[in-house]
C-alpha cells in the first residue's frame, strides 16, 4: 500500500495522471474498461490474485496494449527474474530498492517520450 502510494505521489508531483490498482485482478479489469490507452504501465511482481508475470502476459496479449511501455518494479533478489520478465514483454525491469522514486519517474518519462505518446497517463501497481 505505502509502496503504491509513494510511486503514485512521485508521478502526481511530477504532473502525471495516475490510476492505481492494488491487485492483479482489478488492474486487469481496470485496463479492460479504460477509455484511454495509458502512456505507460508500472507493474509490481508480487501482487495478490493475479501475479505480475501473468498480468504482464495478459496485457501483452491485448493488441490495445501491445506497444505500451511496461516497467516492472520489484524487490526480488533473484536475478533470473529480470530475463524472464524482459522476454515476456516488459520494457524495463527495475529493482525498487536501488531506484529512487524520482529516478523511476525520469526513466518512465524517457520511455514515454521515446514511444512518442504524450498522453501522460499511468497505471501504477
Amino acid at each position: 500500500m505505502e509502496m503504491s502510494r509513494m510511486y503514485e505521489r512521485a508521478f502526481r508531483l511530477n504532473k502525471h495522471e495516475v490510476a492505481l490498482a492494488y491487485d492483479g485482478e482489478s488492474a486487469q479489469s481496470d485496463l479492460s474498461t479504460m477509455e484511454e490507452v495509458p502512456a505507460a504501465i508500472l507493474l509490481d511482481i508480487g501482487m495478490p490474485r493475479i501475479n505480475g508475470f501473468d498480468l504482464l502476459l495478459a496485457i501483452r496479449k491485448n493488441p490495445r496494449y501491445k506497444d505500451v511501455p511496461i516497467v516492472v518494479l520489484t524487490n526480488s533478489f533473484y536475478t533470473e527474474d529480470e530475463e524472464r520478465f524482459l522476454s515476456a514483454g516488459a520494457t524495463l525491469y527495475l529493482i525498487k530498492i536501488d531506484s529512487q522514486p524520482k529516478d523511476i519517474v525520469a526513466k518512465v518519462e524517457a520511455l514515454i517520450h521515446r514511444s512518442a505518446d504524450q498522453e501522460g497517463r499511468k497505471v501504477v501497481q
Partner: protein
Amino acid sequence: MSIADLELKRLRLAYEEERTWHAAKDRIAEKLLEGKIAESNLQFQGKLIDMENMKQAMLNLLEDSKILEDKLAEEKRSVELKVVERTQELKEAQARLLASIESLSFGFIIADVNDRVIIKNAAISSILELTEEPTSVQAIVDSFKGVASGLDVLTHSCRECIDLKKVVELQEISHGKKYLRVFCSPVIVKNENAPDTEEKAIGYVVLIEDITEARIMQRSRDEFFAVASHELRTPLTAIRGNADMMLEMYADKIADNDMKEMLQDINLSSVRLISIVNDFLEVSRLEQGRFEIKKETFNVSEVIEKVLRNLGAMVGQKKLSITYTAQTFPLPSVYADKNRTEQILVNLVGNAVKFTRDGGITVTASIMDGFIGIRVIDTGAGISEQNQALLFRKFQPAGDQTLARDVTQSTGLGLYISKLIISSMGGAIGLEKSEPGKGSTFFFTLPVSSAS
C-alpha cells in the same frame, strides 16, 4: 658278424652287467640294513664291495629323507597356522565391514542377482519404517503397495544397474511424508583366472538416504531468502524513497534546520540499512551457490574506466588523484561476468577511497599467463600484519577496525563477497602488499577470453 654287430653286443653286455651290479648293490644294502649281512667286504662278479661305505651312504639317504619329511610337516603346520591367522583376519575385516555398514545413517542392502537380501543394516528398516525383516528388494517394494510412494521404481532401477553395470541414482523420491535419495550400485567381480572374459555383476548395493530434513532446511532457507528480499527491502524502499522525496521536493518547506537534519539522518540510516540488507542477501545467495554468473567476452579497461568515472561521489571533499594504466593497449578481452567484475572493482576502489586521505589511487591492468591481473594501489592507511591475515573473511572490514569505526561504516562483507564472486568466475583475489601508513595493493585476476 660285422664289426658293428660285435660292438653292439659288447655294449649290451656292459649294460646288462651295469644293471645287475646296481640291483645287487641295492639288495645287499637292504640285507645290510636288516643286519643279515655281517661281512664288511663282499666280492661280486669280481668287484670288491665296500660294505661299510655303502651302509653309510644308505644311512645318509635315510637321514635326508627324514629331514625332508620333517620339513614337510613343518611346512604343513605353518600353512595351517597361516590359514587360522587369515581366517581370523577375514573375520575381523568382516566384522569391521559389518559394523561400518550398521553404523551408516543410510539404509544399506546388498542383494544377489536373484534379488535376495544378503546384508542389510538397521537404518534401512528405520528409514522405510519396515515392520518385517526384508528378504528381498521386491518384498520391500511390495510392502508399500497402496501407499503413496515413489519407491515402486526401485526394482526397475536395481535391474537396470545390474544389466548396464552402472550406478543408478534416484535424486528425490517421495515416500509417504518423506523424501528419499536412492543409489543402486552393481557388485562387479572380475574372473582372475580369465582376465579377458567380461566382468560379472554378482549382485547390487542399494543405498537409501532420508533427505527429508535437508529438504525442509533448503525450503526454509529459500523462504527466508524470499521473505528477506521482499518483506525487508520493501519497507526500507518506502522509508528511503519518501525521505528522499521530502528532501528533494519540499526543500523550501523544510525551513527548520533540525527537521532537515532529522530527515537527512533518516535518509542516511535507511541507505546504510539497505546496504547491510543487500550484503546479507548477497552473501546468503552466494554461499548457497544460487546465483547466476553470466560470462561474456568484454574489455575490462572499459569497466575500470566506468567505475573510476562514477567515483566522484565517493571521493567527495578529498583531493585524491585517480589514475588507470594498462600494460598494453588494447588489453586482451576477458571472459567473465561484466556486472560482477564491476561490483568487485567498486568494492576494491571504494575501499581504497575510504581508507585514503592524501595521495591517490592507481589502477593497473597487466597480462599474466592466461589472465588479466588488475591491481588497485592506494596511498592510504594500510593494514597491520595481524589484520592482513583476516581479510576476505566474513564480517572482516577491509581496513583496521579502529580506523574503520570512524572513517567508514562497513558490514565487513565486501571483500568476502568479492572473493566468492571471483572464485566462481575462475579468477583469484588477494592483498599483494600493505604497510601501515603507506598504503595497500589489492589485486584480482580474470581469465583471458579464448576469443581474443
